[in-house]
């Protein structure tokens, strides 16, 4: 006896005596059993994939860095005396500072306090 299909039937739970159902299932089994050979399909898909940003040449970054460095050197040579003047002024300003044991001690205390605070913040974050 053939049971009328119900709306809540899953295709896997249909009665086996439904001839159309059995027919479609038999065809479905054959369909799944047939493996289609690749025949170059995967290669065609791989060849058609869009170019990856990672595929850019490896020398690109060093070349850009070298260009920037060359530019910087060029600017330094284009302004004769400016770079050495600036360096001399910085050194003079540092040497003009009065250095005392108290000043060094204060600087050390400030540095240690900063380091301890930074470590405490990082550990609390973890």
């Amino acid at each position: 006896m053939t049971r009328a299909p119900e709306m809540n039937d899953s295709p896997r739970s249909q009665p086996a005596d439904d001839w159309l159902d059995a027919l479609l299932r038999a065809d479905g089994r054959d369909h799944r059993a047939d493996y289609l050979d690749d025949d170059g399909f995967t290669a065609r898909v791989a060849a058609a994939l869009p170019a990856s940003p990672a595929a850019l040449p490896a020398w690109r970054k060093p070349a850009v860095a070298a260009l920037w460095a060359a530019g910087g050197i060029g600017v330094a040579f284009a302004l004769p005396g400016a770079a050495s003047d600036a360096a001399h002024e910085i050194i003079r300003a540092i040497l003009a500072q009065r250095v005392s044991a108290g000043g060094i001690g204060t600087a050390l205390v400030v540095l240690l306090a900063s380091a301890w605070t930074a470590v405490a913040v990082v550990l609390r974050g973890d």
Partner: protein
Amino acid sequence: MAQPQLSDAQLIARVVVHDDRNAFSDLVRRHQSAVRATLRRLTAGNHALADDLAQETFMLAYRNIKSFRQEAQFSTWLYRIATNAFLADARRRKEDLLGDRDLELTTEGDDEGAAPAEAAGSDHARGATLRIDIDRALAVLSDAERAAIVHCYHNDLSHEEAAIALNCPVGTVKTHILRAKAKLKSRLAGWESQ
């Protein structure tokens, strides 16, 4: 020693994180047969069109693989993309492929209730004849009905999985199946006594 085969999820992770083309090729190699066979059924046996749509399916899968949330199987997700590609293409060429096939079917002698070939003595011949008759019968279904039958019977998906593949509610899948089977019953009536 042979390397253990990676799962779909592991291959997908490689593609997403490292843009690993070899991992994606492994996925294509693993699923190409099922996707191409499904599209051959959906396109009523047009192998060239099916392969074009299969290629489009994998290209779209590659572009959108980051959006794959692993809520369904990867194969079901591929079926969804393939079905969308097929339906979009069918809309574009609605007046030629299926229209021509419908005309062909009605002019080639109205074989409603096609009987299995008498010569179909062996199981192999019977299977081949059945496949031809089912292909012809599937061609008279609407695109959505055919897709529902192909996913539920040929790909053995549940109604829920078919709903994901067809991008529609489960109730709509059931309706498509019922309507499709009503049409197929009359087209394949000759097989009832087999």
